[in-house]
């Protein structure tokens, strides 16, 4: 392996050399998938690397998407299948980027194939091993609200539909006991001897599509530090809404399984908060909260939803109309004010807030509270950015070369950004951004050599002299 990707071209000469017309896309959510499909459809090879056992990212965790209320699985699974079957896409799930070197057109990438303890070539996806596994642990996909086995697929529509074994919880891998999965597998696909393996690939361009995590509700002191099971995050509520989720789509309180009659939704939990959270707006919460309130009401027609908000940011196509629909058709009650405290009392969650438009203090004894927690970059992105030699901002989002002129390029030629890795955005904008990244890659690939304007536009600093006065 030679040195890390160079951030600019010191000599200001156009880079020369053959371009490997194969792209690496890091991240298999909607952004990574869309970029991969667009590059593949243009006729170039794509390696799509995803660290979870399945592609799908955050979007596949959602129940219905705003503003159309399309079922998320229904609109996403066709794309997931397309990705897995596209002749130009080499899908590598349960894999991570280990090392990168080289430069635009000529990157060398080492990819770690994590030990799944299942031979995915032999595995037919029949699911008997999962059925027989005796170990149940909280499911990460369901954010702890449901359980999975130690050998598992994260969700029913997983692509590929092949399980992996979680070494930390598998009784055989920890203590040498059990091993039932191996006994019942009819194609002998279980292989406890597996270790991580490495694959070396050459690519000409890399797209970072690593998505987002949520700021943990366990950090919010005023709202109970995650102590109250009936105070959930927005993503947890999505899992409750989801027909293939832990409650099969019935809205039930995590604590006692009762159907909540009054649900309070709080926007801007951690977002727009210089002191204790992140100063930026997470962009999607006003819309998904409106959606949550509406979907809740569709499931619990005699329920009441309250939304505490500061502003309503509904700038997309059909978005404002969607929010109004929630108010007019589903009776969502919007209260403009912040919530100062949440606590549990007598089986209810008491919410103390303000309604600044009527200038009154509000107290609601709710059955459940949903916090729209801030979007933050996915865990591990800073480390990946270091490997790629790209810049991240104060919050950990990958920095674009220029917000308006080069929204999908980074400062490092040949490395592009797609989706929330750059900045919080919703699904329509992610798909568009991902398409833009793909076009950047295909533009690169359609030149015989690289002659990148971005490389030339980088500033030149002499090591001896320093910036000119």
């Amino acid at each position, binding site marked *: 392996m030679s040195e890390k990707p160079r951030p600019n071209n010191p000599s200001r000469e156009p880079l020369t050399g053959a371009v490997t017309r194969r792209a690496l896309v890091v991240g298999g959510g909607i952004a990574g998938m869309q970029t991969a499909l667009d590059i593949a459809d243009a006729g170039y090879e794509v390696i799509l690397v995803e660290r979870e056992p399945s592609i799908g990212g955050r979007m596949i965790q959602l129940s219905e998407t705003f503003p159309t209320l399309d079922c998320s699985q229904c609109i996403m699974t066709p794309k997931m299948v397309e990705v897995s079957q596209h002749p130009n896409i080499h899908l590598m799930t349960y894999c991570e980027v280990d090392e990168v070197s080289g430069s635009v057109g000529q990157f060398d990438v080492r990819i770690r194939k994590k030990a799944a303890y299942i031979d995915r070539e032999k595995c037919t996806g029949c699911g008997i091993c999962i059925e027989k596994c005796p170990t149940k642990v909280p499911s990460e996909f369901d954010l702890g609200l449901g359980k999975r086995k130690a050998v598992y697929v994260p969700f029913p529509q997983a692509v590929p539909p092949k399980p992996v074994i979680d070494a930390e919880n598998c009784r055989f891998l920890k203590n040498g006991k059990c091993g039932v999965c191996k006994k019942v597998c009819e194609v002998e696909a279980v292989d406890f001897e597996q270790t991580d393996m490495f694959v070396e690939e050459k690519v000409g361009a890399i797209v970072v599509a690593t998505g987002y995590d949520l700021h943990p509700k366990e950090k919010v*002191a*005023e709202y109970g*530090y995650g102590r109250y099971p009936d105070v959930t995050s927005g993503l947890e509520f999505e899992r409750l809404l989801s027909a293939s989720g832990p409650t099969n789509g019935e809205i039930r309180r995590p604590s006692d399984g009762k159907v909540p009659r009054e649900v309070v939704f709080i926007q801007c939990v951690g977002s727009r908060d210089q002191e204790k959270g992140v100063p930026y707006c997470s962009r999607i919460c006003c819309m998904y909260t409106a959606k949550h309130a509406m979907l809740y009401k569709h499931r619990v027609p005699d329920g009441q939803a309250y939304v505490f908000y500061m502003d309503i940011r509904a700038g997309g196509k059909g978005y404002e109309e969607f929010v109004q629909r929630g108010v007019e058709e589903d009776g969502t009650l919007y209260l403009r004010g912040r919530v100062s*405290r949440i*606590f549990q*009392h007598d089986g209810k969650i*008491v919410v*103390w807030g303000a309604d600044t438009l009527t200038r009154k203090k509000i107290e609601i004894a709710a059955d459940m509270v949903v916090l729209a927690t801030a979007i933050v970059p996915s865990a591990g992105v800073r480390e990946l950015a270091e490997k790629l030699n790209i810049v991240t901002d104060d919050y950990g989002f990958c920095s674009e070369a220029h917000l308006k002129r080069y929204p999908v390029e980074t400062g490092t030629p040949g490395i592009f950004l797609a989706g929330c890795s750059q900045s919080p955005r919703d699904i329509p904008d992610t798909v568009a951004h991902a398409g833009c990244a793909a076009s950047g890659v295909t533009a690169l690939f359609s030149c015989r050599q690289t002659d990148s304007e971005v490389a030339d536009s980088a500033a030149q600093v002499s090591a001896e002299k320093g910036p000119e006065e």
Partner: protein
Amino acid sequence: MKIHYYPGCTLKVTAPQFESSAVAAARAVGVEMLELTRWNCCGTVYSLASDDLIHQLAPIRNLIRVRNEKGNAVTTLCSMCFNTIKRAGLLVNEDAEKRGKINAFMDEEDDYEGGVEVVHLLEILRDKVGFETIREKVTNPLNELRASPYYGCLLLRPEEIGIDNAESPTVLEDLLECIGAEPVDSPFKTECCGSYQTVDKVDLVIEKTRDIISWAARNHAQCVVVSCPLCFFNLDRRQKDLAEREPGAVLLPVFYFTQLLALALGLEVDVCGFDKHVVDPLPLLSSKGFV
């Protein structure tokens, strides 16, 4: 350990029981509190009300007293004094120009160079003595005493001087546990008691007192534990007004944390000065066998 002690006006006049129980309890856990010989009123929060430096003189002069007596740190019990003196101290630590002006004005005093550490007794108990040490010295654990800590504002805010997390503090709960009591949570534990509004807006303070006391009672507390003489006055004295307005209102005795600590350490009940309370705490304490 020894530490210079700044009492402030209230501790000498209306809250002597806070001082007597604190000095005795601190001594019992190895902390000797040495009262400054020439202290003056700190000015309380009025000293900090605007950027007018003259308001800083009172608290800074007390820090000079600490230096006069060769001290590096001072402790205090009153939340107002703590808040005021610590913030004034931080201001002049960081701003040499303001410090210079203050020193120039108080030319009859030694110059203050900054750096005196201001710590509240709760910080000393938590960080220097340690709750485990205190637990070992407890001879009369206050078993099954359900006590609801009430922090008020000035010990916790602003963040640069707060002794604990302003939204979810735990130092009083931890102390209560180590003396055998059962801390009771309350959503009002960091809500303002009304402070000086008690002078001319009594109704407001009675409202706050009702909220604070009733929520503690609703959560099955038998008493409320405070660390500020003004909170104590509001919660204790105003319960009398509350009782007059609402004859059925649940009343709870209010303690300084040092009084409970003194009892648990097996000290003479005289240091606690329970006779000075408006809501009599003795029935509760006798029923539990603590006195």
